[in-house]
């Protein structure tokens, strides 16, 4: 932080003075990370000049601007002065956002079944295109289907879903003739707006006005038909940039949007013998359950099935983790299960045997741990050269494995170690 207002580059040796000698390792790792993010520049070591650190020019000036609140960049939006329609209140916005978001989720799930059911109901063509571009659904001759990425998307928290979709959107922004930088800055502005207030569209740039249409499709903002110069951010957008705790409280009042349609109450009962009963009739929920359990019977208002080793294995090959399944089951647990857990004294909601077994089933499939990277070998320059390189790799936090006897070691990233070896050669 202190580097921020420093105009001149800062010698690395002085930085060492700031840091306690025994935490040198942490300092080196932090520096190497910042370098990778292009936040700081470190000059190459040479004999004449000492190594110096400086903030990258763009990052420094932008951060300074943001902190002082200077510049005319409207980073917090311009409230609209016009009269607000009385019908637009918080619950209206919540309902609107939920309806839009569920439309999108429904489309993803129902892409498995027949596409005709959703006729006229689903999201707009632009959203569908986006989902396809992101490989969440695929279009084939048989009407398309949901992909692995789509499965794990469904099991995520609402906020994570929104971000996944927005990231896709940003990636594809260029194709839609939008400037991705402007898209990003607008999204961050949205995140800092106040829920339930009207903002004016007049101050927005041309690209941003174009973006409004997409955001309406996602349910992130609402534009009243009577006054098209106003827009209201919904709960989906105002929580974009908030931290995890805020996210949870929001999702508590909003969890209906995550996967279910009927209400915010839990509906799943799971017993210690791995049997599962779900009181639901929504095709969306049943489809999600079928991802990781073997459903056997379906009644008008409930389905029953079992969680088996095979069903969990299948889910895992789809890229769903055991933690995702467990968290899904516990967030949607039936009130009866919650009550029981409360009676025992804040015990776990799900039967511990089931939770442990699901984890075990996952571990069974992970018999090897793979780390991509680079193997360094053939150190014929003597023990000293080898030791120096290993110590350096360890200090910048990329070393995963070493064998002193064979003089080999394995690192996750090569760039800095390579530079280090080169600089040693020059000496």
């Amino acid at each position, binding site marked *: 932080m202190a580097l921020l207002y420093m105009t001149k580059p800062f010698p690395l040796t002085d930085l060492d003075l700031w840091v306690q000698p025994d935490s040198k390792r942490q300092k080196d790792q932090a520096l190497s990370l910042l370098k990778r993010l292009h936040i700081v520049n470190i000059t190459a070591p040479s004999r004449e000049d000492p190594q110096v650190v400086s903030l990258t020019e763009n990052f420094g000036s932008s951060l300074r601007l943001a902190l002082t609140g200077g510049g005319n960049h409207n980073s917090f939006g311009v409230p609209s002065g016009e009269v607000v329609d009385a019908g637009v209140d918080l619950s209206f916005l919540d309902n609107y956002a939920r309806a839009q978001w569920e439309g999108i989720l429904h489309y993803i799930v129902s892409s498995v079944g027949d596409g005709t059911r959703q006729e006229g109901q689903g999201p707009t063509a632009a959203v569908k295109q986006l989902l396809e571009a992101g490989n969440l659904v695929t279009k084939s001759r048989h009407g398309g289907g949901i992909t692995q990425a789509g499965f794990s998307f469904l099991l995520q928290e609402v906020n994570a879903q929104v971000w996944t979709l927005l990231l896709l959107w940003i990636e594809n922004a260029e194709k839609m003739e939008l400037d991705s930088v402007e898209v990003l800055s607008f999204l961050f502005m949205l995140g800092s707006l106040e829920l339930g207030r009207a903002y004016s569209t007049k101050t927005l740039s041309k690209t941003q006005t174009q973006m409004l249409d997409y955001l309406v499709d996602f349910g992130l903002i609402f534009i009243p038909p009577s006054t098209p110069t106003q827009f209201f951010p919904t709960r989906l957008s105002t929580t974009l940039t908030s931290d995890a705790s805020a996210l949870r409280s929001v999702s508590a009042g909003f969890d209906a949007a995550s996967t279910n349609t009927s209400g915010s109450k839990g509906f799943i009962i799971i017993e210690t013998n*791995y049997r599962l009963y779900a009181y639901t009739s929504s095709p969306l929920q049943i489809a999600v359950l079928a991802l990781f359990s073997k459903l056997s019977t379906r009644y008008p208002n409930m389905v029953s099935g079992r969680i088996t080793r095979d069903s969990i294995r299948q889910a895992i090959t789809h890229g769903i983790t055991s933690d995702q399944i467990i968290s899904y089951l516990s967030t949607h647990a039936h009130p009866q299960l919650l009550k029981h857990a409360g009676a025992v004294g804040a015990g776990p909601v799900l039967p511990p045997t089931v939770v442990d077994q699901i984890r075990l089933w996952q571990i069974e499939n992970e018999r*090897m741990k*793979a*780390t991509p990277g*680079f193997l*360094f070998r*053939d150190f014929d*320059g003597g023990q000293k050269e080898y030791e120096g390189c290993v110590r350096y790799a360890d200090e910048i936090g990329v070393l995963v*494995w070493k064998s002193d006897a064979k003089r080999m070691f394995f690192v996750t990233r090569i760039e800095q170690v390579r530079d280090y070896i080169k600089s040693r050669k020059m000496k």
Partner: protein
Amino acid sequence: MPRAIRGVLVECDPSIKSIIVKIDSEDHAFIVEELDDQTLVVKENMLAILKMRLEDELKNTQQLPDDSGSE
């Protein structure tokens, strides 16, 4: 001169490692370097295939618990 080789470091039990070595012994398409009892480096692009072969091999050797159960 030290050399750097791109690859994937695989850490596993000795028993699993010996299966990998056995798979590799057919056409030597997977392993770059055997490091010790529990670690080896395999080619990056072959990792997915190796995982599949390993899975097949384990299916043959392991007795799976019967979990068909009553519904």
